[in-house]
């Protein structure tokens, strides 16, 4: 898409409810081959007010049209920093749908679920090898859910020792879910300032007997490796605390560095990022958590154990923090992640990391003259620019919206919060040099437009399906569902 993205045949489509026609139905039931019975009438519902009535073809057209209003990784480059939007291999979808996996009920006894248990066990072992942690749980349903599991284990560890620590240190480069998670676990959040990379001194100053843990994202949200991490871990441990690592950015470390070797006590993975499972416009994710030996007793139940050649789910664990979801895991996501891991192998994973870092640094080199680079350190898999110095009242949002006109999904904007007007670009390894060159050309052209024709930025997008949407109105007068009376 080197030229400005063009508008194709994009069909309009009302809401499901507005397309409804009385008497239609898109589904036929099997014949009822037992006598029809009814519970007592006082319990019964009259009808589902407002529910749509549509034929199968109505439904197919509806969603097919909606899909054309979306942009996905298969549509093009998706450089959302921290979100790691890499290509989603198609074989992953095939294996996740194998009937032996897809039709397995979660209450099936262990001895009849050996295939799934084996897959989970092997994935667990592989993730331990990749991260350097001796034990791991696959249970959490997303990164933030993994954070929650991890911080509960931290809490349980202190609790078991009679420690009454109530604070958690979180650097300013952390993801927004980190402080929210700490608060959810009943902790008070103490922010610490970093200068891109967290210093030992900053942690030393903040560290006291009330601090249960430090929660650090590594590489952090600036794409920088926390160079002092070993010393920081030692310091936190020496003062009785633990170190949590947000491992969402593990894509930068595969085969290069294992967080578990550095003294970190607990870390979550975002399988849907690093291991190529599709994000589905919101989820699902999977957020396994690796832990050090001392935290192992606190792992959530169930725990997968291998005995001889068979596997089972163990629930009888005296010190466990308990259960985090109804059943054992986001199994379908695990299948995809494991397929990716095996397809890549150790060499492939290492290469993926190298190319992800190559791509990010290449973008950095190409854009450095056109956009302000607030942190000069060599970044890993992502690079953060800002809108500082752009003329004519052009800001990050305008750049993002103008990129839509060029046919690209914009980078993450206004995050991390430490950079004013941030543009956080993460190309991942699955983008080719051509793709990246074209994207950089577009961004350079936009920087030029900011000087010569800022109107184009302020009016953008003009080529997307909708013009700029009024988010203020949406928040001021929230309308969260369709209502037949209001229309």
């Amino acid at each position, binding site marked *: 898409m080197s030229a400005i993205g063009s508008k194709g045949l994009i069909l309009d489509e009302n*809401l499901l*409810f507005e397309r409804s026609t009385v008497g239609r139905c*898109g*589904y036929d*039931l099997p014949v*009822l081959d*037992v006598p029809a019975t009814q519970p007592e009438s006082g319990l019964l519902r009259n009808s589902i007010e407002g529910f*749509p*009535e549509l034929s199968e073809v109505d*439904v197919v057209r509806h969603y097919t049209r*909606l*899909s054309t*209003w979306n942009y996905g990784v*298969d*549509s093009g480059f998706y450089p959302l920093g921290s979100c790691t939007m890499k290509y*989603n*291999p198609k074989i992953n979808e095939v294996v996740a749908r194998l*009937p032996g996996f897809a039709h397995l*009920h*979660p209450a*099936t006894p262990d001895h009849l679920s050996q295939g799934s248990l084996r897959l989970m066990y092997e994935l667990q072992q592989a993730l331990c*090898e990749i991260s350097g942690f001796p034990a791991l749980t696959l249970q959490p*349903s997303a*990164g933030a859910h993994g954070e929650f599991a991890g911080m509960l284990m931290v809490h349980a560890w202190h609790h078991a020792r009679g420690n009454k620590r109530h604070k958690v240190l979180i650097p300013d480069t952390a993801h927004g879910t980190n*402080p929210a998670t700490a608060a959810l676990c009943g902790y008070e959040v103490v922010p610490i300032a970093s200068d891109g990379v967290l210093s030992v001194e900053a942690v030393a100053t903040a560290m006291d007997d009330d601090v249960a843990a430090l929660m650090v994202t590594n*590489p952090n949200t600036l794409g920088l490796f926390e160079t002092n991490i070993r010393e920081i871990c030692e310091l936190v441990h020496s003062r009785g605390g633990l170190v949590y690592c947000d491992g969402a950015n593990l894509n930068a470390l595969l085969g290069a*560095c294992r967080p578990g070797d550095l003294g970190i006590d607990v870390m979550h993975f975002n399988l849907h990022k690093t291991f190529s499972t599709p994000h*589905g*416009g*919101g989820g*699902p994710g999977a957020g396994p958590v690796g832990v050090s030996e001392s935290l192992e007793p606190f792992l959530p139940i169930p725990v997968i154990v291998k005995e001889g050649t068979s596997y089972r789910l163990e629930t009888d664990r005296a010190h466990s*923090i308990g259960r*985090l979801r*109804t059943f*054992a*895991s986001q*199994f*379908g*996501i695990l299948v995809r992640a494991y397929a990716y*891991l*095996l397809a890549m*192998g*150790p*060499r492939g*994973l290492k*290469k*993926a990391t*190298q190319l992800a870092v190559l791509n990010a640094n290449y973008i950095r*080199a190409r854009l450095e003259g056109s956009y302000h680079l607030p942190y000069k350190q060599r970044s*890993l898999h992502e690079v953060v620019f800002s809108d500082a110095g752009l003329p004519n009242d052009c800001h990050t949002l305008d750049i993002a919206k103008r990129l839509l006109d060029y046919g690209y999904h914009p980078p993450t904007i206004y*995050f991390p919060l430490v950079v004013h007007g941030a543009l956080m670009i993460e190309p991942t*390894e*699955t983008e080719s040099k051509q793709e990246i060159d074209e994207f950089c050309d577009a961004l350079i052209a936009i920087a030029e437009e900011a000087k010569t024709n800022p109107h184009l930025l302020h009016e953008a997008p003009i080529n*997307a399906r*909708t013009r700029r949407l*009024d*988010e203020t109105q949406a928040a001021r007068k*929230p309308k*969260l569902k*369709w209502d037949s009376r209001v229309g």
Partner: protein
Amino acid sequence: MRYLPHSDLEIQSMLKTIGVEQLEELFIGIPENCRLPRALDLDGPLAEAELLRRFQSMAAANAADDSWSQFLGGGYYDHHIPAVIDHLISRSEFYTAYTPYQPEISQGTLQAIYEFQTLICQLTGLDVANASLYDGASACAEAVLMSLRCGRNRTKILLSRGVHPRYREVIATYVRYLDVELIEVPLRADGQTDEKLVAELLAADVAALVVGYPNYLGVVEEIDALAKLAHSSGARMLVAAAEPLAMALYRSPGELGADIVVGEGQSFGLPLTYGGPGVGFIAARQQDMRSLPGRLVGETVDKDGERGFVLTLATREQHIRREKATSNICSNQGICAVMVSIYLALLGKNGLPQLARDNYSRAAYLREQIAALPGYSLPFSAPFFNEFVVSCSQPAAEVLQRLEQQKILAGISLLDDYPEIKNGLLICVTEQNDRAQLDGLVSALNGGAA
């Protein structure tokens, strides 16, 4: 390395632009003492054909093929999934998109989620719903936290023993280190939550009463009476539905007085997949809108005045006030929510109630047949939906084991969760169980061949 597009020449040229010679030099940010000095010890790489064979052999080790007939429910239900669903969600514009942070190029996902929110409101009879949570149990735990936010100084939660045992465990995990007391309300002999005890336990410091719909034992609760009690002491009535299809047959929880309704949406078009991913839903009344956890999609207009949709009320989320967020939810179950919407749209206003009625009839038929067998009895008399408990004269595990020989997964033993029910077995019926299967189960339970 089929997923990696770079040629060696391209790598060289990129390195040159950056001003380094080797890929390794790009990693100078990682101190030497943090580097992994060896190669990872992992399997692979595998070609696609090898990968497929390996996964097929693992999948084949599960009892998930058509030769089995199964009556397992307990929070995950084997319904037929219309072919349309997989076809539509396999459109990569849906499944390869991220959370819709850029609404102008995400209207497909945003409108689909807005429709999901609407469908959930219509089904539950409530005013607002969010864009999904991880699963039924975690949604239930989030709803408990929500009721605590709504009821400021209230610190107690009344939890019916009929609520799904796994949901209760997850709630306990979520409040483990908070200043909250969970109080279990026992069930009456007929299987319903004991109203008298609820009345006694309700006090000014109770934030919510949590009850199943139907409960884990398949029993339909008297939500309206319980809701009146809860409201009389200012507590929220929280209803948790493991099988929300029941809402298409029975009066909606909203109509019966529920303030918050959560549940598992897997029933609506998601494969069983060993318990995940499913999709948690949560709906509430208007007054509690700002306490809802997770993402919300709202309607708005664009610069030309055209209708459009955006993620909204983000100040409740982790982006802005961070440690004051209503939850830490970031990824939810976007594509699963769209699957639910497609399913509900296909079945619609007429198909969904019909499915619920048929499943009730099938369950009623089986229940009656089993009750007539020697050695089996029905402990509960209250109304039920698609699942019911049978008391066996032998330990349930023995019955299950015996039927396994005939390739029948007859149900879930209640020994661990409800030891007070003698040899309890929870049996579930869906439209996937035809009469031949139902009769086969009856005959096998009776000691005959399936």
